């Protein structure tokens, strides 16, 4: 009997999980479906089967030039992530392995900057960008994206490094490893999974960032977020084109996320599950 109940519970749980997953995924799915409809079909009402036309895609590309935005997105997300890692790895390392009395306070302070709404600093940041000539520049936006994600990157790396027992580093020292050998043979192999998942998450966060990327760019440095928003413009709403643009914008990151999901889940749950 006990076994039957368990199986029943399992089935219910599985069905419930599928329903929740579908509900969460449905907007994305419907966006993809709509992108294969004509403009007329799109405004006609709810329909799950599209006519299968590619006209929205061709128009979107002809009208706005998808690849320039795509290139900017790649450059900004990868560039800001590399910058963030360059700053965050030494920071997290020193906080994890030689903590001081103030380490926790510094970490909390860094995190507290994420609690502030971005709009609160829009004017000062905008003015700084304007006066330093960084508006609509890739470098400026890269630094901006790096700064807004830095607290999360430092926290993730800190949590990950904290899990590397200090005794292992001491053992390496006793075994005759120089600092350089310690880094190459012991530290890096143990830290690579953590760095990799932090990197993946940060690329996704930077890719999806829409507040600053839309406000601090016009044409030159504009990434895919600006590309999407340009389709809800004064000319009116074009659902099919907007959907095609959105699909094109999320596709690369969705594909990357799909292939790296194992690494990502591990990265997001470390510390919680051992």
């Amino acid at each position: 009997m006990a076994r039957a109940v368990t199986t029943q519970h399992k089935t219910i749980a599985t069905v419930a999980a599928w329903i929740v997953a579908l509900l969460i995924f449905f907007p994305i799915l419907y966006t993809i479906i709509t992108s294969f409809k004509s403009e007329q079909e799109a405004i006609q009402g709810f329909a799950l089967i599209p006519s299968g036309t590619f006209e929205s895609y061709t128009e979107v590309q002809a009208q706005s030039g998808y690849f320039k935005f795509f290139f900017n997105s790649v450059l900004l997300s990868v560039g800001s992530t590399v910058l963030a890692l360059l700053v965050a790895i030494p920071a997290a390392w020193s906080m994890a392995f030689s903590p001081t009395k103030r380490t926790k306070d510094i970490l909390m302070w860094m995190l507290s900057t994420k609690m502030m709404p971005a709009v609160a600093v829009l004017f000062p940041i905008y003015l700084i960008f304007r006066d330093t000539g960084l508006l609509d520049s890739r470098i400026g936006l890269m630094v901006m994206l790096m700064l807004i994600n830095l607290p999360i990157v430092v926290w993730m790396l800190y949590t990950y490094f904290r899990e590397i027992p200090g005794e292992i580093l001491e053992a390496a020292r006793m075994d005759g490893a120089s600092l350089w050998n310690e880094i190459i043979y012991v530290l890096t192999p143990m830290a690579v999974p953590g760095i990799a998942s932090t990197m993946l998450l940060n690329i996704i966060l930077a890719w999806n960032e829409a507040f600053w990327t839309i406000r601090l760019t016009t044409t030159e440095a504009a990434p895919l977020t600006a590309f999407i928003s340009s389709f809800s413009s004064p000319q009116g709403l074009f659902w099919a084109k907007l959907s095609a643009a959105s699909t094109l914008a999320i596709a690369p990151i969705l594909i990357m996320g799909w292939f790296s999901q194992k690494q990502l889940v591990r990265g997001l749950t470390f510390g919680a599950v051992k």
Partner: protein
Amino acid sequence: MGNITLKNVSKSFGSTVIIPGIDLVIENGEFVVFVGPSGCGKSTLLRLIAGLEDTSGGTINIDGRDVTGEAPAKRKLAMVFQSYALYPHMTVAKNIAFPLKMAGEDQATIDRKVKDAARVLNLTNYLERRPGQLSGGQRQRVAIGRAIVRQPSAFLFDEPLSNLDAALRGTMRLEISELHHQLKTTMIYVTHDQVEAMTMADKIVVLNAGNIEQVGSPMELYKTPRNLFVAGFIGSPKMNLVEGAPAAKYSAKTIGIRPEHMQISTTAGEWKATVGVAEHLGSDTFLHVQADGVGPLTVRADGELAVHHGDTIYLTPDKAKLHRFGPDGKAMAT
């Protein structure tokens, strides 16, 4: 060689003094155990010798060479950690080979030495596994293997058995002692377990609050503890310490009598006592009694002794084995 000499070695963390100043000589080939309660500074002292902590004062000599300011790697010491501290991403073979690789040995020598160490430690069948796939005892053997391949001048053990269960601890204790007989290399072993100290050591260093209370062979410490701390720390079950009138009778502030040094009678004796809990271990029986005018005592009796909760017995301490301590807590001349 493995002569280690500490001269007035001290350690403070900020304003907190962990070790005020220690002098100690460890001879080549000795098995020395640092024992004491937690927080007594025994692990810190070991780490100072290893070079993992910097000294605040004093000098450390290894084989006549002042190594006080030298990096751990240059001291030619090997250390086995409490958590094993194996490299999780390397196989057993690579873990053991790591110090040899760091020393720049050629691959053929590394392979030979790793195989030798694996044979000594019964690890031959596990060389290609990773630490995560091994049991606690096997991991500890790998840690020891990593230490022995380097042929260091001394081994340092930092509570290496405390993560193992009781049965395995007993086995590993024997294995480490056996290894010491084979290698005849100096070993310094830190533990809070006085049984490990008594069974393994050539020389025990009893530490308390960063000071050495007494240094001596296990039997010296057992027979002639220099003060109340050592008397209470060495021996299992603990020595009974009695103050007041029964001690005054022996012209002492405190008297100490070990559980095994009292005669038990059901008819007459010096102290009348009521039996509380009787622990029957088979070979021995430990009686926890309440003696009139003396207080709670632990008595070691024959395993066959048939006494039960609430029985009255009479105890007579063996005068030749009675320890007397003065008001300063130090042992008085007998």
